């Protein structure tokens, strides 16, 4: 079959599109892959207005919090070291949010803007002690959105 000029042009266009797809697809997939967690994994599930974890006690060392927000509201994930009970953290003047600068509260790290269905991993080197994980958006903590993790 004789290749006309137009047919040859279409063939070239098809080859170029396929080549572009061959480069673009692996790059896109690679960006979605998350780094492999190191340390002790703790799966954390955030929802309105609860924090659930699959391990209440973990060994000291690196702990990887694999956080997933089930929503529907956007949440924060904050880890503080404290000896206080999880529902007795000091509040700010508005009476609705935790005062993280209060004595006895040691803010370790936090992840903001976890929207519905977001996944995030937070790795921390934790020394033995009691840790409280909560969301500090207005009314969320007081609505019961906190949990305790003990590190030995």
């Amino acid at each position: 079959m004789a290749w006309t000029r137009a047919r040859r042009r279409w063939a070239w266009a098809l080859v170029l599109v396929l080549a572009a797809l061959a480069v673009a697809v692996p790059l896109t997939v690679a960006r979605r892959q998350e780094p492999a967690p190191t340390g002790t994994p703790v799966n954390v599930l955030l929802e309105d207005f609860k924090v659930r974890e699959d391990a209440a006690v973990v060994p000291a060392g690196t702990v990887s919090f694999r956080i997933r927000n089930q929503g529907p509201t956007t949440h924060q994930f904050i880890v503080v070291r404290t000896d206080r009970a999880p529902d007795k953290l000091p509040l700010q003047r508005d009476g609705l949010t935790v005062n993280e600068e209060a004595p006895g509260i040691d803010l370790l790290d936090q992840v903001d803007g976890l929207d519905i269905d977001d996944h995030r991993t937070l790795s921390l080197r934790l020394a033995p002690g009691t840790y409280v994980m909560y969301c500090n958006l207005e009314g969320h903590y007081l609505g019961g959105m906190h949990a305790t993790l003990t590190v030995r």
Partner: protein
Amino acid sequence: MPRSPSADVRAASATQRKAAGGRSGFGRLIPRLPILGDLRLGRRLGWVIPVFIVLVTAIVGYNARAIDQQRGSALVVYTAARQRAFVERYTTDVLLVVDGFQADPEESGEDVRGPVDVLLDGGSVRAPQGGGQRVEIAPASDWRVRRKLEQDRRLIDELIRTGDRLLKGGRADPDYDANVTQLRVLSAQLSSVSNDAVREITQQTEASLSRLVRIGIGLGVLGALLALAMGLLLRRAGAEQAAQFRSLVNNSSDLITVLSPDGTIAYQSPSVERVLGRRPADLVGTALGNLVHPDDRDQVIMSVTELAETPGATASFGCRLHHEDGSWRHVESICTNLADDPRVNGLVLNIRDVTEQAALRKSIGDLLHNLARRSQGLVDRQLELIDELERNEVDPDRLDELFRMDHLATRMRRNVENLIVLSGVDQRRRWSESVPLREVVEAAVGEIEDYSRVLVTGIYDLTLAGQAASDVAHLLAELVENATSFSSPSTRVDVSGGPAGTGYVLEIEDHGIGMSDAELAEANKRLAEPLAADVAMSRMMGFHVVGRLAARHGIRVQLRHCWFGGVTALVLLPAALLGSAGERPPMAPPMPAGVMVSPEPLLLASSWESGWQPRAHLPLGRHAAPAPHRGGDPDAAAEAGEPFE
């Protein structure tokens, strides 16, 4: 290797397509662009237009969608913000009522539910600009937004229930503090969820608008590129067209001249160098009249001046133009007045060199003339011989036969004279003195075979200039013969006259079958514009001859329908040809049929310089056969056997 027939057919089809602009498929659907004139868009521009249309539609559509989305988003944000205000008011109202103050938590509770219901399910809300107007909000479609709004609604329900408990139990309720805290927490959570929903909507709107802007910019850039490409292609097409036009003008054998309103040459095509041996630059700015032969100059100036008064009109004329080598070139010119066109602002002359045709026509005319002259001499000798025989003959039967021969010879002589007229050689018989008009008419009638059917009446006692007498007699003879040939032998042909304006009009009226409008128009055209000697002239030759003879002396001849059938030929003799022969009688007495022509040789004959003489002895009482049709040439009819023998 020989090609198969089908391959040839395909190749021919492809060639035809190429000749028709080379367009195929979608390109065929695209009409020509008027701005490109004869250049078809074809394969090069065919794809640009549909793409451009799609692009513009896409840009307009996206803009409309973006504007609608912006408006909708602003409304949603406004409605969500109002919902937060309502929550705060409800909480305050509940606490005020519990503390014994005046408030209406029931109404504010209803207000709290309103916005979220509208955002979730769609509906109308009060317009932000006020004035009592309401605007429609579409139901939220994004699943994230819907989930947040549903959570919002659950929290509102819980808030209302908590408020109800507080309102019901008051401060005395043991759970008062817990309920107040719960109310504040729920209020804060609602605020947070509302904020979250608004943020989500805003983010989505921003992303959507950003996408729309990017797409809009992309489409705009693409549109600009396409417009640029189209502009370049159009420019190239225009340049090609201009080059094609230049090539046509430069290589044309015709001259294209643009005359400015003052008669000077504003533009001269390069082909003038080939035709007249002159450079265009030498002619620009000079008057056209300088090139025209002095004999033709007045006519050319008159034609151009007349044309210049009518924008858009076209006229044609012939003349001779001066060649650089001193010779004269015969040209035919078609002139169009484009003074109204700002791109031309003048008269455009398309001039064709017809010198060779003119020379050819002249040589044909000379040939015709030579042949006719030889025949004329022979016919004249034949007529002299017949005359002698007639004089000496006493047997009535033999005399009648001689008369018939005499008439046939006379007709032959007129045919020969027709050829001389058509040859274009001006070798007229001169009449030194004025001739009475009546005698000219009688001489014309005497020329025809059916003279006995002709009734001449009311010819004024005028004289006709000598130089026109022979031609007028010939002209009248042709018209009278036409009238007798194409009417029934039993009918009469009337020849009469009367003053008309400053001239005198002769009417030749028959009672025949007449002519159709088209035939009449054609005959009148031939009479007004006699053609040069060519093949087309063989039809209606008589009318051509009449037209030429009339043109020589400024005589106007026109055919008209008779109201009772038949045709009237009007011959308007101009005053310049006429003279008075004493008192003008009011109307000459009618002449009886059959005796209109003098039986003796007309006295006029002695004054002819050469050639033709009106016949003296005319046979009486003979009739032509009925005419089957008219509008053609009597000679042709005679050759066909009717109406002549």
